[in-house]
């Protein structure tokens, strides 16, 4: 088991290296000069050229890439052009907010998706099934951007129940406050988190619910389910102890895959809800052409995605003992 985790972690290195090269090349292709952005429109061409040289933007692309990879190997992601701080420091200061949002969104999506899928499959053909799948259809079709605006319009502007922007205390602080007798801090944390997490998780919830339903229907038609029913087990027990456990296997890997989409969606969600995470930072970095920061953020997202998929594989093995984690698949 440990060796499996070790091997998977080692595999992260070529994945990350691939990411670095692809991002680097993409950034070479997009127009827009960081030096000109830094100096503003009134800067003279000579001044822009001087800064380009100082930033190393003049060197050939392979020299720049080589230099970047060498530094990265030493744990140095470079300096942000606009913030004059190490990229790693800038990213770490924002990572918590995005992870918090993505994890809660994934949790919400998983709970809602599984509940909807189970309800639909166990009452196939009824109004509950139709209603649940209609909801899923809506969730799949609505762009995050639009849903976010609608949610804020309804819950914040019309009802006034929840704040439209901002973030409460960070999760650890909120939890600590909750147990030390300051529940209002925790409530404030939840009230800020709910709408962005809902907007971000809705699509994943819809996808998960469809998969749970399909997977459950498939398992429901198998012999062992008929056997369980004929043994006189209660329908609830059949569903939860036998059907769901088998139907969830493909769902678990789907949840892992959705995490990548969630990180992408976080960029949009954070900018609508003023959530101070990596997504908002990504937009600022791109609009300023802060190349080292864009590279750093992309690499961080890639590593996060790979780690979550590793976690999913481990959970997969725990749920299904038939899967052995002896070697790298």
């Amino acid at each position, binding site marked *: 088991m440990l060796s499996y985790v070790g091997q998977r972690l080692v595999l992260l290195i070529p994945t990350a290296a691939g990411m670095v090269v692809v991002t680097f090349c993409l950034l070479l292709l997009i127009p827009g000069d960081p030096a000109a952005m830094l100096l503003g429109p009134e800067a*003279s061409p000579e*001044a822009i050229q001087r800064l380009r040289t100082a930033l190393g933007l003049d060197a050939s692309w392979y020299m720049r890439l080589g230099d970047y990879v060498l530094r990265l190997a030493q744990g140095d992601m470079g300096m942000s052009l606009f913030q004059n701080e190490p990229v790693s420091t800038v990213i770490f200061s924002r990572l918590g907010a995005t992870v918090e949002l993505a994890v809660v969104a994934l949790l919400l999506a998983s709970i809602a998706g599984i509940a909807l899928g189970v309800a639909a499959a166990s009452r196939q053909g009824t109004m509950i099934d139709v209603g649940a799948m209609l909801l899923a259809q809506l969730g799949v079709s609505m762009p995050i951007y639009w849903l976010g605006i609608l949610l804020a319009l309804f819950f914040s502007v019309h009802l006034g129940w929840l704040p*439209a922007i901002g973030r409460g205390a960070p999760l650890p602080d909120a939890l600590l406050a909750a147990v030390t007798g300051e529940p209002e801090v925790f409530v404030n944390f939840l009230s800020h988190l709910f709408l962005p997490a809902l907007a971000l998780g809705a699509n994943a919830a819809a996808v998960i619910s469809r998969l749970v339903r399909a997977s459950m229907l498939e398992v429901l038609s198998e012999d062992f389910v008929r056997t369980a029913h004929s043994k006189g087990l209660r329908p609830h027990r059949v569903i939860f102890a036998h059907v769901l456990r088998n139907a969830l296997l493909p769902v678990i890997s789907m949840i892992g895959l959705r995490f990548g989409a969630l990180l992408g969606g976080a960029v949009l969600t954070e900018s609508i809800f003023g959530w*101070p995470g990596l997504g908002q930072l990504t937009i600022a970095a791109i609009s*300023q052409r802060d190349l080292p920061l864009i590279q750093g953020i992309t690499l961080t997202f890639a590593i996060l995605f790979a780690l979550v998929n590793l976690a999913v594989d481990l959970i997969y093995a725990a749920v299904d003992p038939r899967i052995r984690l002896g070697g790298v698949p």
Partner: protein
Amino acid sequence: MRAIVSAPLVLAAVLTATTPGVSYAEMPKAVRVGIDVDAGTLDPRLARDTTAFRANDLIYDGLVQLSQDLKPVPDIAESWDNPAPTVWVFHLRKGVKFHDGAPLTAEDVVFTYRSIIDPKFNAPYRALVTPVASVDAIDASTVKFTLEVPYAPLLSYLDVGIVPKALVEGGRDIALKPIGTGPMKLAAWQRGASIKLEANADYWAGAPAAKTIELVVIGDNTARAQAFEAGDLDLIQSPLSPQDIKRLQADRRFVPTVQAGLGITYLNLNTADPILADPKMRRALAMLIDQKTIVGKIYEGVDQAATSILLPSSWAYSPEIKQPDFDPEGARALLASLGWKVSNGDGLLRKDGKPLKLTIATHSEDPNRVQAVEFMQAVMKQAGIQAEIQISDWPSFSTGYVQQGKHQVALLGWLNLVDPDRVSYGQLHTDGSLNWGKYANPALDALLDAGRQSLDLPGRQAAYRGAARVIADELPYYVLSYQGYQRFHNPKLGELQVNPRGYLRALVAPAK
């Protein structure tokens, strides 16, 4: 010309400039303001975006401040005189301290302006103060500016924040950790998310009523408007979407301010392009711009249809100077006189067998500009022009395209036009640093030089009207609209004085 300002007058002017017409006790302790983009830097010498200007205005003091009607009024400089046309002497206010407690002296002012005029420092503002030959300290509280030539707009450009010489020379990065003498201090800056400012209790004009002002970045206009409606923000201002402006104007819970702003939206016609080099061709294209429909339908009347490069609020404005009207038939005739005719059945204009191709470009961040460009494309196609559009994000559009002179027709804007010089000299003088369309006209150059060097208002007025006439006739710029300025605030802030640049000093009136 000699202008000596007396002390009581100074005090009155400063109070007018910094106090809103409400009882200050009403100002809440914490004020949250929605903004569209983060500041690029908090070093006032290097600022170039609206947020940086607005935040720096709170953190720093300039030699002067521009009043509501854009007149220079005393700030750090208590008074000034102008003993010769090329000499300006500023007498500094005493007892002004930086946020770290160090006193502000003439050396700080000299250091600030010497760095701005130093070409190596790359200050965006340098282009506006190029006539300044030297800045010297006469004594600890007197500064002398010596100019190469008389320069009328100078005072309007001296509101740049004064930075502490000792700290900057000591290596402090004030772009990230600013220290000024202004009413607010930087408390925290989360890049791309928020700038939190706290009151400077030792401010020379009295401690501000608001204890904190947080500038919260919400990039999307509608999301920002919603956050305001939900009560999460106390004040929002331009840029706002026309649809949101209409809704907020009708909402009685908020205090609306909708008035003329200090910006234009214009088409930059690249005169270095072979097709657009001929002024008649530029005129024909201008006659194909349905300005009324664009301003009325796309901007929903929030902006105003422009007549020339001069803002209606400016002393230089004249309604008699007019760009060509929308006239498709006239345009067709003009194009025909230039040899562009429909020669086969496809309806396309051709000359020597080649179709008339044109690319109109803008940036993707502003949906109204994108819509305007799409509409112009449709009208031009109807007229037989093979019009294409090109939309890209701001860095690609600005640094990689327009500023490189790669465009044919580009839709963009200018803000903060506090003086007619601000929208003409850099942009359309042959040697102008912002002359991306390479327009060169000695007659216009002479008028723009005269506008800078005449020290009396009638002389300047005549120069800029002449310049505006040339521009409306030759059309290196076609000015589409005068941008409106909109602000909405929560009534709990009281009646706030309006600053068309969106500066927020009205929030920091001294506490009572």
